[in-house]
């Protein structure tokens, strides 16, 4: 079919099943936006390119589909960088389409020129510069394939301006020819036999679920494995939702602000079965003393993650979609009565955990962050998507919000990007209009992409924005309180900002809660009212997130109170 490059981009997106893009126009993508206009292709105009890329990220995290973002050259592309890095660290599939200056102008420091491929190489799985329109269909086909297969990640396609205007015979390729990449990840089945044997020999096994379980959509299989084994289990921050919080033996999430029970179980177990995780420094504490008594098993799709931070004893390379069902079947075929064997160890782990559960001390009228998030968690149904920004509120959300299912706790775990929350919540709501979406943010984080309040108002995107408002950059303040002699350097926030007025000015309703009883009287009504709302909740400034494993300490050296 005869068409120009801009039409070819949109036709290719349709072929990939894309029904919505997030983007911001500009000089070199005017032709593309003209075709978007003519074709009525759904595009959400955000307030900032960073908002667009985080929105595409939230869309992708909530669904597993590839999120698509469009930006113009130069500053448009550069504004995507934080969002691309965020998605890359958390293995989120994105295709980022950026305009580039015309082919003949590349390399001349032209107006709004930036080397997108150069800048994005370290933070993408792959990138392309398209200077010839004939390459466009193949490149888009490959980009989507690379982004969503294997370990998902962002892919950038930088398209020279002249490509959009050039006519050619469009044909979308069926076949993909990548000599160095198959997208298939089937491993060696005997590696699973070795793990089954290790489980049969173990006395104190612990299952540790990471974000890979969420991404590979194997949480049901993992739950069946847990049913069979009856051993205790924990998850990483990114793995929240992979195990149901009510499960007997689920100890909460592990790591720096994880539960006492999880961290102690990791240090005490004799077999740590890690599933789809990458041993982040927030998870391991002092890495040399991580799980000192355990043989470590690593189920992992990415060979480069095995033995990167922690040396493992058993590796099962391959997609969890392949390995976990085999592991389950082999465990089911074993003669060992695992549940009976591990029963007392599970009970012991739970008992240890119960000594120091996630908690907060009620204090009269004051709203404690833990009380706020617990209350919201109780009010929300099991399909609610919780989104967070980054900081203290993020950890409180992880501790107190009971995430029931995968893809329902969206957080910037690896990069820790403040400003992620609001646009990501917007993307998640657009992806899952039938689900309630609650954003937990802070008075620091919300300011980093607050312009997107206007976007959610313009598009009637029903996101409930809960600002855990403590007048400080809380996590920075916590570290300054604990390790820097209470020097609140550049962390205290000005008291004059009024989030209700900001919300109303952008077209969103605003509410403020200041007293504990308002969690009962006012909160439910606001939470279940139709349409977006900002809920500004005033909490104490000096509340710490606990427990906490200080930097460089072992997981069992937690500060508890």
């Amino acid at each position, binding site marked *: 079919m005869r068409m120009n490059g801009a039409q070819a981009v949109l036709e290719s997106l349709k072929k990939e099943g894309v029904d919505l893009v997030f983007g911001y126009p500009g000089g070199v993508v005017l032709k593309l936006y003209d075709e978007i206009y003519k074709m009525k292709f759904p595009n959400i105009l955000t307030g900032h390119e960073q908002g667009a890329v985080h929105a595409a990220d939230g869309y992708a995290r909530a669904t597993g589909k590839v999120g698509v973002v469009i930006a113009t050259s130069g500053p448009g592309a550069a504004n995507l960088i934080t969002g691309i890095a965020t998605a890359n660290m958390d293995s989120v599939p994105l295709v980022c389409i950026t305009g580039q200056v015309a082919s003949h102008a590349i390399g001349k420091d032209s107006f709004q020129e930036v080397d997108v491929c150069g800048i994005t190489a370290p933070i993408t799985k*792959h990138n392309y510069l398209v200077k010839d329109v004939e390459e466009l269909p193949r490149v888009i086909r490959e980009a989507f394939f*690379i982004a969503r297969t294997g370990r998902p990640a962002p892919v950038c396609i930088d398209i020279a301006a002249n490509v959009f205007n050039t006519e050619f015979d469009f044909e979308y390729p069926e076949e993909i020819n990548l000599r160095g990449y198959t997208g298939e990840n089937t491993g060696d089945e005997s590696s699973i036999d070795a793990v089954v044997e290790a489980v049969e020999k173990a006395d104190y096994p612990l299952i540790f679920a990471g974000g890979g379980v969420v991404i590979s959509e194997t949480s049901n299989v993992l739950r069946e494995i847990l049913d069979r084994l009856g051993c205790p289990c924990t998850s990483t921050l990114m793995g929240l939702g992979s195990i149901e919080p009510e499960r007997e033996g689920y100890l909460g999430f592990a790591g720096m602000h994880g539960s006492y029970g999880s961290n102690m179980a990791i240090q005490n177990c004799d077999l740590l079965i890690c599933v789809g995780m990458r041993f982040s420094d927030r998870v391991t504490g002092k890495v040399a003393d991580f799980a000192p008594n355990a043989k470590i098993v690593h189920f992992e799709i990415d060979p480069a993650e095995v033995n990167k931070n922690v*040396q493992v004893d058993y590796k099962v390379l391959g997609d969890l979609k392949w390995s976990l069902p085999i592991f389950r079947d082999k465990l089911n075929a074993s003669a060992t009565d695992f549940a009976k064997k591990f029963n007392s160890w599970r009970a012991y782990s739970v008992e240890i955990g119960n000594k120091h559960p996630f908690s907060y001390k009620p204090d009269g009228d004051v709203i404690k962050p833990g009380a706020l998030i617990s209350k919201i968690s109780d009010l929300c149904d099991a399909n609610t998507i919780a989104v967070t920004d980054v900081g203290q509120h993020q950890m409180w959300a992880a501790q107190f919000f009971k995430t029931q299912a995968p893809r329902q706790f969206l957080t910037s775990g690896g990069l820790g990007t403040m400003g992620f929350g609001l646009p990501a919540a917007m993307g998640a709501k657009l992806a899952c209009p039938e689900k309630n979406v609650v954003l937990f943010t802070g008075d620091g984080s919300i300011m980093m992409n607050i312009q997107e309040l206007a976007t959610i108002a313009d598009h009637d995107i029903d996101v409930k924005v809960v600002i855990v408002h403590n007048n400080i950059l809380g996590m920075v303040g916590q570290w300054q309180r604990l390790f820097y002699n209470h020097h609140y350097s550049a962390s205290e926030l000005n008291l004059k900002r009024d989030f209700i007025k900001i919300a109303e000015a952008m077209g969103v309703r605003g509410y403020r809660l200041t007293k504990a009883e308002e969690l009962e009287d006012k909160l439910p009504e606001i939470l279940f009212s139709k349409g977006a709302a900002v809920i500004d909740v005033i909490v104490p400034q000096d509340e710490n997130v606990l427990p906490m494993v200080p930097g460089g300490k072992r997981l069992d050296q937690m500060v508890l109170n």
Partner: protein
Amino acid sequence: MQKFLLAVLVDNKPGVLTHVAGLISRRAFNIESISAGYTEEPSVTRINIVVSVESENELDQVVNQLGKLIDVIKIVNLSKAPSIERELVMIKIKASKENRADLVSVVDIFRAKIVDVTSENVIIELTGNQQKIDAICEVLSDYEIVEIARTGAIALSRGPIPVKKM
């Protein structure tokens, strides 16, 4: 520190060398040398990398990280296979009438070649493994070396099986 020579076959596309070199630097791996060139297949470039690592585990990390690059087709550690390794060096040395004869004898001993002579200097070319090249550089340090250009090591496996089929 141990050195290993990796033969990396990659798609012959723009930006590939940037991807490979960028990955090595941002993962904080040490490279001794890197060189790239065309191969018997027009669509494939061969990158020869000498990495210097603390342990086999670090070497695995280099290989696994490189393996994640979409453009990378194949990686073979030629230091672990029977292989022939060569490097080319050119050395420009100040040479007067008085010491030129001495230089010629050094060149002969190393089976190097003098490829350019002017009234003030000579350029010596030598092909060999890294030890041999290090050795001639050492001997020639008695003279006034103006400049040195080395290609970095390249290698081929011995026997009939090429790297792409290993």
